[in-house]
């Protein structure tokens, strides 16, 4: 026996509400984060991620308050990200109720945040969030919610964040995000093979076979889903059932 593969539900939040868009634009309100979080835990989600997609300084207090309200009612791991700028922010997010903190743009600006965060709080709470877009034969890293191109190659960057202390990688394909035509399996596999920490595949889930592909062909440790659940296209039970049928080890939830 060993680790099961995880199904992680992402809630994009803005001003305390869950929203969902396509390719980082065109947002729609899809519900109350705490209610959705509780519902997804009951249904068998293995983890939750709150990503504050506005990520402004003013929004951060709202995000931390939301983390606090959620943590008091949630008994599965909660990752929060968006607008984390300093190692002090990581500490505040953890104190507020996060179990893990995702760092994206701030890590590109100054990668020492991964090292400082890991030393202070442990490598298992520091998640490097990488947004990558296909370009030629590789993938370029973007920041600021997919708006700003960097000079970084995604595979090399993944190696660097892990060397600096990140304990997990949340890998989002900008090309696939919200498109529901499947994860970027080649990108996922390239990152999984480059690092020794768990990799969460994100961006592109449209149905259960996409999720299974992310694990089996993409070799991801976890698959992140959002819109297809919030819109009622499928359910956690259906996704986990399909994973089980594909002989992927998953956590069973008692009925």
């Amino acid at each position, binding site marked *: 026996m060993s680790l099961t593969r995880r199904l992680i539900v992402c809630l994009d939040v803005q001003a305390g509400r869950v929203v969902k868009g396509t390719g980082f634009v065109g947002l729609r309100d899809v519900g109350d984060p705490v209610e959705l979080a509780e519902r997804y835990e009951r249904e068998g989600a293995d983890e939750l991620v709150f990503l504050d997609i506005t990520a402004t300084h003013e929004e951060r207090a709202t995000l931390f308050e939301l983390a606090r309200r959620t943590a008091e009612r949630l008994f599965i791991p909660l990752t929060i990200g968006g607008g984390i700028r300093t190692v002090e922010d990581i500490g505040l997010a*953890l104190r507020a109720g996060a179990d893990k903190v995702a760092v994206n743009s701030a890590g590109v600006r100054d990668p020492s945040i991964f090292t400082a965060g890991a030393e202070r709080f442990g490598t298992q709470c520091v998640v490097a969030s990488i947004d990558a877009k296909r370009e030629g034969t590789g993938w370029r890293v973007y920041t600021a919610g997919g708006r700003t191109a960097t000079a970084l190659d995604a595979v090399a960057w993944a190696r660097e964040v892990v060397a600096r202390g990140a304990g997990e990688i949340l890998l989002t394909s900008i090309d696939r995000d919200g498109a529901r035509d499947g994860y970027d399996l080649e990108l996922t596999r390239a990152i999984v093979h480059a690092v020794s920490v768990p990799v969460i595949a994100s961006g592109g889930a449209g149905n259960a076979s996409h999720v299974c592909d992310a694990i089996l062909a993409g070799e991801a440790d976890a698959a992140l889903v959002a819109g297809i659940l919030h819109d009622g296209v499928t359910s956690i039970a259906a996704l986990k059932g399909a994973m089980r049928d594909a002989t992927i080890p998953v956590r069973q939830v008692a009925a």
Partner: protein
Amino acid sequence: MQITLFDYGAGNLHSLAKALRGEGRTVRLEADPRAALATDVLVLPGVGAFAPAAAALAPARDAMRDALRDGLPCIGICLGMQLMFEASDEGAGEGLGLFSGRVTKIDAPQLPQIGWNTLDDVTDVDLRAAKLETAYYANSYVCRPADSSVVSAWSSHGNDRFPASVRTARTVGVQFHPEKSSAPGVRFIQLFLESL
């Protein structure tokens, strides 16, 4: 019943505090290790690194070990379980030494171990009653007890097999996070408290 979470300054304690609550119980956080001993149940929570946590409990290390040996009920979670041992390869400082043995790195190609792992050879009565079969882990280090008879459940990751829990009459240490292991995890905590 007074339950005290020893707060070494790192991490989310909200879910754990909520999981400990119940009829006739009060839950408080205490950063002073000596003051934390004035309680009915001591909880050593699970997030942080060994060295700063060992430094935080150093001023009351002997008193805490003696209190636990004299029967003060205690739950140690993840790092909290590791602090019940003598020392850790992760960082400097001394643990409580309640259990003989060191804390060392898991032998696995992928670390940290993050995710839900199965428990096997479970003898712990509360784990069994709670039907906690798959638990959430977030760690790179595990405890190596000199006396394996204290181990009450096991897990495996990579090439390694390690204690998922250790138990004496009134002390339980768990390497996973029951407060993050959904309903069965919370049930385990509740059953342990009810057994006291």
